[in-house]
């Protein structure tokens, strides 16, 4: 484990697992992340030109799907009875899923290509193994979640070993796999930063827009009215003219 990562992951985990309500949030986030990974691996299984890899990606995807279910069931178990938490609702509703690698319609596999994808899988899985070890070493989760994590760790260790073997193959073939691994590490740091800046930017722009709302909107309230109910004559406008069809409004 990297010294820097070790330095911050331990203390952060200590806090995160002890704050009220946070264990279920963390587990829900893991569930959604695993589910997203399942989609990435299935997309890779579908698209890979290396036919010998298809089954490996597919089995990896099935593991990730199973892990998502295990984490979701831990969220259910830890949520107060009769009062479903937001975290649980998130795992119940896959429509909230945003954590997969599809960006602008391209899957992670399509964006990276096979070698970079495998390097990414290796780095991500190794990080997950390290992270789970921190949780277990510090005895942070409850006993049942600990047992679940140990179960999942076996799969994750297998994912690390098979992706490492594939990376080794690339290395033997003289492919720039070490560069790809460095790139994958850098990409994870960059994506973490981008997530932070995006979230921060959204919050800040929300504040500015709220200021705008209270400063600018209120005078217009005097003239604005909601529409009345009931049928109204459809406004006169051309619905079949090409010029009108070109308009966005």
């Amino acid at each position, binding site marked *: 484990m990297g010294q820097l990562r070790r330095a911050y992951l331990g203390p952060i985990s200590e806090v995160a697992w002890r704050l009220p309500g946070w264990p279920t949030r963390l587990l829900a986030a893991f569930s959604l992340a695993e589910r997203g990974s399942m989609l990435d691996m299935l997309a890779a299984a579908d698209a890979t030109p290396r036919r010998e890899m298809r089954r490996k990606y597919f089995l990896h995807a099935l593991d990730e799907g199973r892990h998502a279910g295990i984490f979701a069931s831990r969220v259910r178990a830890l949520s107060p009875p009769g009062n479903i938490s937001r975290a649980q609702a998130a795992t119940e509703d896959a429509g909230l899923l945003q954590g997969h690698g599809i960006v602008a319609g391209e899957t992670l596999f399509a964006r990276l290509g096979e070698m970079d994808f495998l390097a990414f899988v290796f780095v991500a899985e190794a990080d997950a193994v390290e992270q789970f070890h921190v949780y277990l070493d510090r005895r942070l989760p409850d006993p049942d979640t600990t047992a679940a994590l140990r179960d999942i760790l076996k799969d994750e260790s297998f994912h690390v070993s098979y992706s490492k073997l594939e990376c080794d193959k690339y290395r033997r073939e003289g492919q720039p796999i070490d560069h790809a691994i460095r790139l994958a590490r850098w990409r994870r740091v960059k994506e973490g*930063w*981008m997530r*932070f*800046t*995006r979230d*921060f*930017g959204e919050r*800040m*722009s929300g504040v*500015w*827009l709220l200021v*705008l709302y209270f400063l*600018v*909107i209120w005078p*217009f309230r005097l*003239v*604005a009215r909601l529409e009345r109910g009931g049928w109204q004559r459809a*406004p006169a406008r051309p619905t079949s003219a090409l010029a009108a069809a070109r*308009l*966005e*409004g």
Partner: protein
Amino acid sequence: MSTPEPYEPSRLDATLARLGTAGALLSMLARGGRWWMLPLALIVLVVGVGLLVLQSVHYVAPFIYMVF
């Protein structure tokens, strides 16, 4: 016969298209008789351009927001 390539808009095309959209919005409001919304839409559009600029440099968004 070679297959034509799909169109890739340049930055200038995109900027012009956005200006066109802003104009189309104002024109639509005027056409529809919602005159009172014109100044409001104008203010909102100016803010929108600001947001777009910030988005284009989102690597450093937190620092820019701190300056503001």
